[in-house]
């Protein structure tokens, strides 16, 4: 099972604006994307949320994934740890996916399969793979490295910055370039569109609902659409809480095998 993508989606869009609104439209583009990255991925020093993912295929058939996600920042803007505890559907209930997100090297990922009491290590090189079969990919959730793309400010009209991003390394990336719309007030990314070399729109991620949680702008609902083959995934967050005081040791093998009762019940 490929759970990696889910994590990424959760984190990137559940984020909080770490920076105050910036009045000038003269902000350098590198600052904009850096602020957007931090705004989207580092709300509070930790966070907890119930996430429901509804995957609709091109023929309209639906599947659902439900999970409790715990996140803790090791350093603001840097390393993070994630604990994803699946509750639905029944065949994956109590499965745990855990990630230590690093900067500058591959993440560490673990998968715990309760039926066999098996802790499995998963390689984390393919960041563009589907997260639990959804239309989100791993990088949507954990964030794409800023150094992976060149950035160009296309426009600063209205409430958003429009940034064009071109990958420096084309290998292993399914798109040629992508646009991201970033809210000027919060630096929260609100829309992303991925194009191929011919300019055809491949995939779109849209934030449909945001809410202020404990002073942090927070994504409550977002959607990823496959515009080539059809199908989409809706991601909904409930009971989002920040700064709940997650202990460091939750992100260890101990709690893979025995879920942290106080946080998952």
């Amino acid at each position: 099972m490929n759970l990696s993508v889910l994590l990424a989606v959760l984190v990137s869009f559940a984020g909080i604006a770490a920076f105050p609104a910036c009045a000038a439209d003269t902000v350098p583009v590198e600052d904009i994307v850096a602020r957007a990255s931090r705004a989207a991925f580092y709300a509070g020093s930790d966070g907890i949320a119930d996430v429901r993912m509804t995957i609709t295929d091109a023929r309209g058939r639906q599947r659902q994934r439900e999970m409790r996600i715990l996140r803790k920042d090791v350093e603001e803007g840097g390393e993070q740890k994630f604990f994803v505890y699946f509750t639905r559907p029944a065949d994956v209930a109590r499965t745990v996916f855990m990630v230590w997100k690093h900067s500058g090297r591959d993440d560490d990922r673990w998968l715990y399969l309760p039926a066999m009491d098996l802790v499995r290590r998963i390689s984390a090189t393919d960041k563009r793979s589907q997260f639990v079969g959804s239309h989100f990919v791993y990088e949507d959730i954990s964030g794409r490295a800023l150094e992976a793309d060149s950035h160009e400010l296309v426009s600063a009209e209205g409430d958003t910055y429009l940034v064009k991003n071109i990958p420096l390394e084309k290998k292993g990336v399914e798109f040629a370039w992508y646009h991201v719309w970033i809210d000027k007030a919060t630096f929260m990314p609100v829309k992303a569109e991925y194009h191929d070399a011919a300019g055809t729109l491949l995939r779109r991620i849209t934030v449909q609902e945001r809410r202020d949680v404990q002073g942090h702008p927070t994504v409550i609902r977002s959607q990823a659409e496959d515009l080539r083959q059809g199908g989409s995934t809706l991601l909904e967050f409930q009971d989002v809480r920040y700064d709940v005081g997650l202990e460091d040791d939750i992100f260890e093998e101990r709690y893979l095998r025995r879920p942290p009762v106080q946080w998952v019940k």
Partner: protein
Amino acid sequence: MGKVGILGVFCLALLLWAGSAGAGTTLNGFAESAAGARWQGVDTKRDDLVLLESRLQLKAVHYVDGENFWAQKQTMLNFKGDFFADGYFAGKTGFALREANAAFSPVPFADIKAGRQVLTWGTGDLLFINDLFPKDYISFFSGRDDEYLKQPSDAIKTSFFQEWFNTDVVLMRPRANLTPEGDRLSFYDSFSRQISGRAVDRHLVEPPDQLSNLEYALRAYRTLGSNEAALYFFRGFDRNPSSYKNELNRQLYYRRLDAYGASMRGPFLAGIANLEAGWHLSREDDRGDNRLVENSALKAMAGYDRDLGNDFRAGVQYLYEQRLDYTAYSAALLPGDLCFDQRRHLLTQRLTKQFRRQTVTASLFNFWSPSDRDGYLRPALSWQASDRWSLVTGLNIPWGDDLYTEFGQMQRNRSVYFRSRYSF
């Protein structure tokens, strides 16, 4: 249904009652039908089938709520059991209790899990050196879900968590592997010197169920950066009936076994690599000169697993096994005894490719031993039709030049199986 069945139903009722008394209980399960047809049988109960069964698995998890002592100790109750109707054995019905345990933290730096539980550790993929917990190879070779390769243990597992390393201490009742017995799967019978089924005339003598026969399994482990290192110790009994209690009476038994081992796992060349080694000490034949008792052995393996993109993964493993005190072993053999090799090399490959948003999975697991000249091919295709329905079909193709090797003896159990499951 027997005592275990009644116990299981009782546990389930208790959990349901606890669940109705408050939130904190979840109940899941599945209903599954499975059938497996064989190419060619050898005197097994059915020469056309390996599998024909329905099962209902119920699992319940209860978190103890409130202000009481057990809630403060973060107590969790787990139950899992299978009701089954086995068409292979003329519709025999029964209940198999897989889990019935309580897990709690008596002090912040320790966990206890007591009761029937499935236990796994070690780094191999379907290869086990230091994981000496009981397996069910009948399920494995007949086409049941991988979950059933693991048998549960009746155990108390205590885990200590410290700054420098963590320790698991398991105390458990001995439980033998379920190995081919002739009724469902044929195998090489060392008495009749041929692949045999129901005609097998041998007796497996299990260790008596007494306090002095309790087994110990220890693991000390820690992470070193992104790598995981572990040391293992086991004192108990061989899981397989590999030694002779009384040759004339055709009695096989489970010799006493100690095992010392170590493992390492971590990221390597954009994938995950693992190394594991173990020394299996045959306590009743530590010089290796008793022809009736299996010798000590050295085992080591290396594996590498990688995500190749587009939902395609590949893994390879190499296992080396060496029978120790080989000179003493060969000197002790009598004329006519089977003489096993000193060294065994085993390679495995796993390929997994997913399609259609990971709802269709094609996988191939292959065992191949160049030294034993045998192997076992396990292709499978599964389809997650919805969140509730899944279908799986696959092949079991063991083969070998000789009849007495690990996979060669299974060559008359080639089968194609089909399973459909409804999860709730």
